[in-house]
């Protein structure tokens, strides 16, 4: 048996950090690789050595096999851990490692090749006697269309009638082609009310396979998992035994080595169907670690070193649940958001709470990679206590500077259907877009109090004076703020809080709004209605006009609107701006072209969706400010349109001059 002394981690973000942690525990040196974008990333600093591998786009760096191999050679790494995503299931990469004499910590190239194609995997599963999702008859609906290659729900579509089939098929094909370079699609029967349950398996190089029970990943958005747990709340011991048995027989059939996950659809009837094999460590692997007490990455490394699997199956204990904190905007169809993590404060850790993350305060979240910020995993004696722990942790988790799904996750965890264990893959929690005005007002009022007091204390002239002293009192002019999508004017009328004290980065205040006090406290503290209010500490971080305010009541980015509005330019212009970070797919107009409201201007691809930017006024395209394939930031101006009236006015005035 070999003992690796140095491993290169061909990945980034939280998984790179997580793999390094295990390496450190074993005593293995680590090599990080990084793109230009990740120059200052956490995983680079935590590694003993780091090798730059190219430009930010993944194809130039994290997907470049040649650069990975040469980085391993340069540093003398004996093995490569691919993490998940990127090159982790790439058979060519596994072969290249083998050719270079570097151990690939994962299944063999052959297994990767076979499992990489969903249709091939289905055939193999069938021969192993594992049930697969039936292919529907031509006139049987609904159908599910998905890409044969790849994963992550890309190109996946539910078709409910024959009429929409062709259109969906073409669209899915296009998306699959763009994402995976192959437009091959699978058409399956759509199983309503199904859950997503997967079995963690391991195989060693001595012909042994084992399973580490199941994970339930039914809670998804945009066909991607966001909450995973083990054990599944919907599985009986009998189903578990059948399902793990099926998983093992498939693993044996394909001679599986190292870590893998076999995914199933569990129908309400108790029947389950094979979906695919994920031939790598999963994002959600900590859930299994929490219930089994095993370190799956350590197991991966040891298997690659030639060790045998443990003889006995570990006894799972309690319940573990994971939530994925993403930089994304639930109110905007969960599209990824970009920006800087101005505030990143983890809740206090404990033995039954784990947080895996590759970011830190000040990290920049770009458009290039998966916007996963952190995985928060809680363990409890039972499902209810694990959920309670996770919810509490999320409430005390501060991630500010960009949009996150934190509050959406909390809402999910507090949803009755979910808590009852009844939420299946079709479960969609409606995203609350209604502003909580009463709560917003509290956050804006806190910001106002902070601005007045702290800025007063920072003055060179009489910093110790009480703020806003007047010997002839006059009403305080309103201060204007924006939070969420709403503006608020905060004056001294109807105060919602009483400031008790303040510091450089906090305000302690008594919240006197009874409605808030009564509805927002989840802890079972009885609110005495005769009490004056409840004291909260509001943490505040300022960046320019933005104030990141948080307390256990919630988190808000409160933007101070300027006191003096800028001059409004005359003439009507439209600037079509990018609603989200993404890449320009097609430009549909040229300069000088006349457009009317509703005309398509630009097609943008943002991670997984095509988005058409349309004109809102009638006018002339004055400038196209982007190029095809250009990566654009949210709010970036794409096209400038001058209104017809304005254009005429200009024409007249220039005519008058001649």
């Amino acid at each position: 048996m070999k003992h690796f002394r140095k491993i290169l981690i061909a990945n980034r973000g939280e998984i790179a950090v997580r793999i390094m942690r295990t390496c450190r525990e074993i005593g293995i040196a680590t090599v990080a690789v990084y793109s230009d974008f990740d120059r200052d990333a956490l995983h680079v600093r935590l590694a003993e050595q780091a090798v730059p591998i190219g430009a930010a786009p993944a194809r130039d760096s994290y997907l470049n096999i040649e650069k990975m191999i040469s980085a391993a050679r340069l540093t003398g790494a004996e093995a490569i851990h691919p993490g998940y995503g990127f090159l982790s299931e790439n058979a060519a990469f596994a072969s290249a490692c083998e050719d270079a004499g570097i151990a690939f910590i994962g299944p063999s190239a052959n297994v990767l090749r076979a499992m990489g194609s969903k249709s091939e995997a289905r055939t193999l599963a069938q021969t192993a006697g594992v049930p697969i999702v039936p292919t529907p008859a031509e006139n049987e609906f609904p159908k599910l269309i998905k890409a044969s290659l790849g994963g992550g729900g890309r190109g996946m579509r539910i078709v409910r009638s024959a009429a929409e089939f062709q259109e969906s098929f073409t669209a899915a094909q296009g998306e699959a082609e763009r994402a995976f370079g192959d437009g091959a699609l699978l058409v399956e029967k759509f199983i309503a009310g199904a859950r997503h349950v997967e079995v963690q398996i391991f195989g060693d190089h001595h012909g042994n396979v084992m399973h580490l029970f199941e994970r339930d990943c039914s809670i998804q958005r945009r066909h991607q998992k966001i909450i995973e747990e083990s054990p599944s709340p919907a599985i009986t011991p009998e189903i578990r035994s059948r399902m793990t048995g099926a998983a093992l027989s498939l693993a044996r059939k394909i001679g599986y080595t190292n870590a893998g996950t076999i995914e199933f659809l569990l129908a309400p009837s108790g029947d389950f169907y094979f979906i695919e094999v994920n031939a790598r460590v999963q994002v959600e692997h900590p859930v299994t670690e929490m219930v089994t007490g095993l370190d799956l990455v350590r197991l991966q490394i040891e298997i690659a070193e030639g060790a045998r699997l443990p003889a006995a199956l570990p006894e799972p204990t309690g319940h573990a649940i994971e939530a994925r904190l993403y930089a994304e905007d639930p109110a905007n169809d969960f599209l990824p958001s970009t920006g800087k993590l101005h505030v990143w404060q983890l809740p206090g850790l404990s033995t039954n709470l784990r947080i895996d993350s590759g970011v830190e305060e000040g990290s920049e979240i770009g458009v290039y990679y998966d916007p996963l910020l952190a995985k928060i995993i809680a363990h409890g004696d039972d499902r209810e206590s694990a959920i309670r722990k996770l919810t509490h942790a999320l409430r005390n988790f501060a991630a500010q500077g960009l949009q996150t799904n934190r509050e959406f996750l909390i809402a999910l965890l507090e949803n009755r259907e979910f808590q009852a264990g009844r939420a299946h893959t079709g479960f969609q929690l409606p995203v609350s877009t209604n502003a909580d005005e009463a709560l917003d007002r509290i956050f804006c009022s806190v910001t106002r109090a902070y601005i007045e007091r702290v800025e007063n204390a920072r003055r060179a002239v009489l910093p110790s004076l009480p703020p806003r002293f007047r010997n002839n009192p006059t009403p305080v002019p309103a201060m204007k703020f924006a939070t969420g999508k709403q503006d608020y004017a905060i004056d001294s009328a109807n105060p919602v809080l009483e400031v008790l004290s303040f510091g450089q980065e906090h305000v302690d205040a008594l919240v006197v709004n009874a409605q808030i006090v009564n509805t927002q406290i989840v802890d079972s503290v009885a609110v005495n209605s005769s009490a004056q209010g409840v004291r909260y500490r509001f943490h505040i971080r300022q960046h320019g006009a933005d104030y990141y305010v948080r307390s256990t009541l919630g988190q808000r980015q409160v933007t101070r609107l300027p006191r003096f509005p800028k001059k409004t330019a005359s003439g009507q212009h439209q600037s079509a701006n990018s609603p989200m970070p993404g890449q320009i797919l097609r430009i549909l107009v040229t300069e000088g072209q006349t457009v009317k409201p509703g005309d398509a201007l630009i097609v943008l691809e943002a991670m997984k969706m095509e988005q058409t930017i349309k004109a809102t006024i009638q006018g002339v395209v004055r400038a196209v400010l982007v190029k095809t394939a250009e990566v654009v930031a949210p709010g970036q101006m794409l096209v400038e349109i001058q209104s017809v009236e304005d254009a005429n006015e200009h024409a007249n005035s220039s005519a008058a001059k001649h």
Partner: protein
Amino acid sequence: MNPLRSAVDRQSSGYLTNYAAMQSAVERLRAELKRSTEGGGEKYVKRHVERGKLLPRDRVEMLLDEGSFFLEIAPLAGYGMENESPGAGVVGGVGLVCGRECLITANEATVKGGATGEAGLWKNARLADIARENHLPGILLVESAGADLPQQSKIFVAGGRGFREITRRSKERIPTISIVFGSSTAGGAYLPGMSDYVVMVKKQAQVFLAGPPLVKMATGEVSDEESLGGAEMHSRVSGLSDYLAEDELDAIRIAREIVSHFNRKKPDRPQMSAATEPVVTEPIVTEPIVTEPIVTEPIYDPDELLGIASADVRVPFEIRDVIARIVDSSEFAEFKPEYGPTLVTGFARIHGFPVGILGNNGVLMSESAGKGAQFIHLCNQQDIPLLFLQNITGFMVGRSYEEDGIIRNGAKLINAVSNSTVPAITIMVGGSYGAGNYAMCGRAYAPRFLFTWPNHRIAVMGEKQLSGVMDIIKREAAAKTGQPVDEARMAMGRKMLEDQIAKESDCYFATARLWDDGIIDPRDTRTVVAIALSAAYNAPVKGTMEWGVFRH
């Protein structure tokens, strides 16, 4: 330094009586002040707002830094006077604009169209004095119909000084910015005319020597107000306006921008209480410099001032109890405590600023006057500003005191007060009678700022003494000529005189006539003095060693 020992018995009947009286006096003050903020009344305020204009006080609020103090000067000028409204049609005071102390003056456009009457003239003159003495940049928020024409005889001649003062300040490197929000015509046109910077609001400003009717009368020329003196004409053609503002907020923004580019520092900076404090006087605009608070509040509750100050000015009270509630940490280093005890002198700090305090603890005697003069010398030697806490019935009278040279010794104190060159601030915390008013730096002795408490009374002597003196004189005159005394008439005359003097000794009568800079809530004293001290430091703070001849 040890804090003063100043425990008051909050349950004593004297305290409770004083407290109740002062509390109701403060409530009345609040009510009177509130009236002063209501402009020309609902109708005119509504009309002004409906024209899309900001009210004068809102203009001031927008001009000030958020969270900044605003020490309003003479908010009750003109109070109770014929043809005047409380505030005299002007809002004026000291506040921070882009981190810099400025003297802001705004016409109250809802009162007689912002026209200036006699009290307004006094108030403007007082505001101009404050700007000059303390080197404060002036910002004029102009919207005025000009002179209150029926009162022209009281204001025309003296009114010219205001324009002279603007340019004389300019020469002293004290700039003035005029923002013209509305009418500024005839003589008023010289407000922007004399200013260093002029901002005019588009479609609102009207600045001309003569309006269209007068022009037509004078030359026959037909014109309209906009072309004759609109903001655009003055910005593009005449050059009277330096900045053309889109609207009122834009104009205020421009004025703030102008101030942010001023490049004058405070010339002197005192040794603040902690030697570690960095010397920072630049205006704080974008990246503020964080200084740890070094100032400790008094250890005694300022609220107790209400129970300490006597409701009846004839009842003396311990001035150290007042000092203990306005100085940092209640620490007071008393000078000559054993000598001349009716005048308390000593050193303290207020919001870090060093200050030499002179407070009355009874009638002025020869010893106390001499001690006061010596103390003023010491403060001048060390460039320490003075704070007078005035509660004085006057100098001691009587044969032995005259023989002892009470006039000669009192003159020493008046000599010192008159020739002292460090800034002085006077707070009248009770009575202000006779030559005591002079010796304790009354208005005529030009303190930088002078505020009073609502219990304050001021006159050459108390109304009873004054009417009594007159009674004696009349009786003596009658006796000389052998006229019989009509007791009923005598009593009536004495009563009428007493009532008149009582009325004229009232603090509202005084403040209406600019005898002071305003009546304040006693609990605000510390804050008001701190603002006054900080403002004073915009001009050099240099004591003198030169005095008039002392009559030793």
